[in-house]
């Protein structure tokens, strides 16, 4: 157990030892190398990593140790030995033996290391280079032939391996096994020929592979997209936050001359520790896509979009919105500040509660759930959990860092994990999860059957729970009954913040209920307006279906909502705030270009409710967060929202604070009857694979190369019925359309079929008009 993990409830036993003559007191179990860090003494190391189990392999961190007067006969690896009372440690600074041992090891590490630093991606930020300078010999005594290998080897489409640079510290292989649970890279061969490798037919397609590139202490593992692109000292680094999902990763964005060249996992022990997923790391090319919108656009009298000046576009937009019955659709990419801007714009400028951030299946039950049942869980609760219950939630695909955190406890403590889902996924198998098999739409009975939860249990619910009538009611009941911690984990980064910002038809900012007069007074005072609309607004689907004349839309893909959304929206006056051209652009009357995350400042709120602030990494004139444009537009309309900057939006939202009055209680909804099926029918279930056709992943082919193949998962029973074998094609159809994919015979409910929701050859709204909880026909293709 490392220091961070010692829970605050436990009484921590402290140990005092002496390192290089200085006393240091640290918690019991602290390794010598880390106790030394506390004193500012840097012992060189390669294999050591605080989040990996000690290996003691590189031997670079050798120090002299004595305990109560008894000296170890030889230097010890300080990365493997916990401190003890009475221990006296002498590092390279005070022990000639340790110093010689370290120099000796460094010399041995370098004999087979190529002198290609000038062309190596790692050069300039390389632990081997740095420590060879600080702790190595000036001159090599090696006169022989260096080991060479064929190079580079693509161990996946996104990771390249140069074996001759490898120092065999096993950080990458230990990460893959201990942290990600994906042992697709291993140490192969032995002795001087030992090398990292994959099995020839199974590439390193782990969702977390990029972390191995980041923790490689040499240039042996490099990212295909970044290889030979930059020198570290030419990059400007900015601390950032990830815009992809609600896991909330701290990030670092590295920019050279206005261009993002790479993104790395940032450090935050309370969130992502030091890891992120490959989507977060590598999916950022969308910001330089060819279809990036760079100027305002307006639709001319011929129905054609043309470039326009800002004043002209603002005037046209204002005219269209001014007297209209209007609403706001805001997608999951919005920052908290932007969502707040949309929220205030709807209420103050449009005079309506017609606002919804849910560009997906959404229900009144969900709205009630989000209003009444607060999420209380955090990553730290997973660390201490006795049981993690997953409901309509596939963390590896839908919130990958949540997955890592659960996996960590499964790996360390073998904690119990239960998944209510139609099938066993690769993720749930890695978590060794007990599967309560439930066809989509039928989860309520499973949720009601859960027993044995305690206040140390954590219930994690995905946004897909809204797709089952009664599921969220059953969750609310379960939480109330057991006192377990709840985490509602939407898929996208903007959603939790959008709730706080009041981007919902029944909530004002700070989660103030629209129906509460005191809450409205709070807001109208703060906003200096006479009154606020009192009626609950329309949700996303209602707005689309309604006779509203105009909509302001930011970051919404109609194909995420329903098949006919685009056609219905095309009848309205649409003001679009968007990064790139999209289906909305095609039907919009006015289009405003907005900044991508790396170009602006702002914050997201992760699933724990923790604010993830970031500053602009790319300095450029296009830096326009949505909120800024909305504020100008509101001025143009004559009903200002006074949020000229991100900073002002943040300050205003913070000053509003959270609602301290009563929240409405959950209006429980009962589950529905189980659908009856004929032999050739199945209940469709789906989710989005982490790597799929999501628009923020556009343009990164190397990343796409590691996506999971599109397959249809059916049970053995169904396979026998259909007379199909693994990888035979099956056709899934309904009155809307069809999808044909190779099948995988898996551990899935017999009545169900699983398809990826938005992958190659399987974009369900496009192809079937539905995403799940719906009866489809299944046949051998």
């Amino acid at each position: 157990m490392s220091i961070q993990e010692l829970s605050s409830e436990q009484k921590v036993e402290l140990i005092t030892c002496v390192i290089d003559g200085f006393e240091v007191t640290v918690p019991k179990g602290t390794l010598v190398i880390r106790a030394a860090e506390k004193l500012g003494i840097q012992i060189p190391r390669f294999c050591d990593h605080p989040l990996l189990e000690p290996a003691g392999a590189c031997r670079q961190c050798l120090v002299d140790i004595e305990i109560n007067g008894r000296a170890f006969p030889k230097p010890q690896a300080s990365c493997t030995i916990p401190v003890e009372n009475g221990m006296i440690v002498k590092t390279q600074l005070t022990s000639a033996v340790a110093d010689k041992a370290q120099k000796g090891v460094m010399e041995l590490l370098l004999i087979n290391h190529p002198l290609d630093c000038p062309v190596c991606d790692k050069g300039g930020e390389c632990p081997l280079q740095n420590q060879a300078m600080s702790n190595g010999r000036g001159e090599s005594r090696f006169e022989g032939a260096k080991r060479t290998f064929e190079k580079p080897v693509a161990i996946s489409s996104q990771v390249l391996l140069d074996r001759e640079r490898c120092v065999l510290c096993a950080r990458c292989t230990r990460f893959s096994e201990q942290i990600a649970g994906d042992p697709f890279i291993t140490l192969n061969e032995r002795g001087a020929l030992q090398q990292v490798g994959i099995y020839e037919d199974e590439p390193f397609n782990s969702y977390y592979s990029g972390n191995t590139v980041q923790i490689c202490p040499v240039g042996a593992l490099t990212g295909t997209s970044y290889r030979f692109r930059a020198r570290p000292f030419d990059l400007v680094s900015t601390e950032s936050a990830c815009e992809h999902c609600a896991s909330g990763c701290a990030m670092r964005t590295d920019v050279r001359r206005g261009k993002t060249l790479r993104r790395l996992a940032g450090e935050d022990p309370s969130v992502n520790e030091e890891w992120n997923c490959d989507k977060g790391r590598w999916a950022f090319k969308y910001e330089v896509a060819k279809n990036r919108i760079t100027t305002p656009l307006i639709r001319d009298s011929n129905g054609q979009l043309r470039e326009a000046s800002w004043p002209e576009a603002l005037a046209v937009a204002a005219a269209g919105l001014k007297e209209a019955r209007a609403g706001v659709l805001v997608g999951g990419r919005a920052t908290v500040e932007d969502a707040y801007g949309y929220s205030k714009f709807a209420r103050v400028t449009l005079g309506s509660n017609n606002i919804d951030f849910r560009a997906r299946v959404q229900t009144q039950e969900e709205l009630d759930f989000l209003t009444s049942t607060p999420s209380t869980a955090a990553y730290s609760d997973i660390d201490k959990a006795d049981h993690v219950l997953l409901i309509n939630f596939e963390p590896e695909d839908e919130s990958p860092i949540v997955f890592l955190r659960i996996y960590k406890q499964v790996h360390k403590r073998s904690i119990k994990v239960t998944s209510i889902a139609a099938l066993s996924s690769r993720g749930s198998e890695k978590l060794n999860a007990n599967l309560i098999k439930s066809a989509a739409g039928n989860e309520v009975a499973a949720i009601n059957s859960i027993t044995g939860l305690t206040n140390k249990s954590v219930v994690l619910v995905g946004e897909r729970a809204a797709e089952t009538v009664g599921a969220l009611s059953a969750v609310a009941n379960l939480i109330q009954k057991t006192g377990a911690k709840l985490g509602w984990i939407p898929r996208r980064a903007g959603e939790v913040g959008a709730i706080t910002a009041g981007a919902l038809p029944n909530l004002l900012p700070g989660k103030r209920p629209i129906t509460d007069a005191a809450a409205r007074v709070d807001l109208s005072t703060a906003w200096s307006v006479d009154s606020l609309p009192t009626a609950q607004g329309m949700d996303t689907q209602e707005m689309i279906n309604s006779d509203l004349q105009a909509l302001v839309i930011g970051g919404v893909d109609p194909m995420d909502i329903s098949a006919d959304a685009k056609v219905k929206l095309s009848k309205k006056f649409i003001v679009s705030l968007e990064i790139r051209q999209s289906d909305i652009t095609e039907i919009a009357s006015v289009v405003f270009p907005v900044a991508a995350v790396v170009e602006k400042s702002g914050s997201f709120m992760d699933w724990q409710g923790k604010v993830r602030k970031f500053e602009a990494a790319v300095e450029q004139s296009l830096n326009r967060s949505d909120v800024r444009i909305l504020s100008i537009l509101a001025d143009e309309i004559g009903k200002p929202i006074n949020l000229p900057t991100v900073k002002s939006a943040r300050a205003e939202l913070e000053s509003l604070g959270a609602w301290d009055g009563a929240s409405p209680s959950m209006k429980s909804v009962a589950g529905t009857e189980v659908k009856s099926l004929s032999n050739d029918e199945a209940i469709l279930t789906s989710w989005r694979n982490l790597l799929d056709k999501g628009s923020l992943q556009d343009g990164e082919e190397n990343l796409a190369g590691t996506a999971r193949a599109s397959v249809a998962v059916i049970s053995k029973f169904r396979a026998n019925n259909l007379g199909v074998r693994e990888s035979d094609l099956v056709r899934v159809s309904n009155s809307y359309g069809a999808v044909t994919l190779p099948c995988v015979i898996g551990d899935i409910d017999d009545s169900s079929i699983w398809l990826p929701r938005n992958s190659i050859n399987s974009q369900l709204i496009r192809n079937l008009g539905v995403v799940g909880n719906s009866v489809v026909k299944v046949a051998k293709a």
Partner: protein
Amino acid sequence: MAYTNEQIAVMDSIIARYPRKRSAIMPLLHFVQSIEGYVTNEGIELIGQKLELATAEVTAVSTFYTQYKSKPVGDYHVGICTNTLCAVMGGDAIFDAVKEHLRIENDGVTPDGKVSLEHIECNAACDYAPVVMVNWEFYDNQTVQSTKDLVDSARAGNPIPPTRGPKTLRTWKQNSAVLAGISDGLANEGVQAGEPTLLGLKKAKGGA
């Protein structure tokens, strides 16, 4: 090639020997060699499936141990000890002579696929030096000529029997099955011990 149901059943019985199935990986690799002669991709994938391991985890193990071969060896795999003691006592000379005789290099296989050659490390028979192993059977006190005769007899399909081992030399695949833990019923064949093994006892009993 596809594994037969009988072969799969043998694999299951090997797995059943152990409290935890991953332990069966080594005998299963020997077993794959007994069927296919070397560690094939099919074998790796099958073992991965059986033990619920990633294929990379299986190759990590198979490439660590020198007895697992990544390409075919001969029906008679000849190992000549060239560790110090055997090398000095004649192993080096034997190895050089046999390479020349067979016209193959270390790790080579004769074109007819009958004999392959490898220089090996100490095989725990130093009192019988120089030692040659064929399919991991002992050929004690070898000379250049005796080893040439040995490989010739193997190529002719009528190998000279081991010094301490069964009456007839079995093939690489057959012996791999023994290493996988499958009895061939030949334990009773051959001597219980060679002369050097018995020398101390003989001397203790007052022998010359």
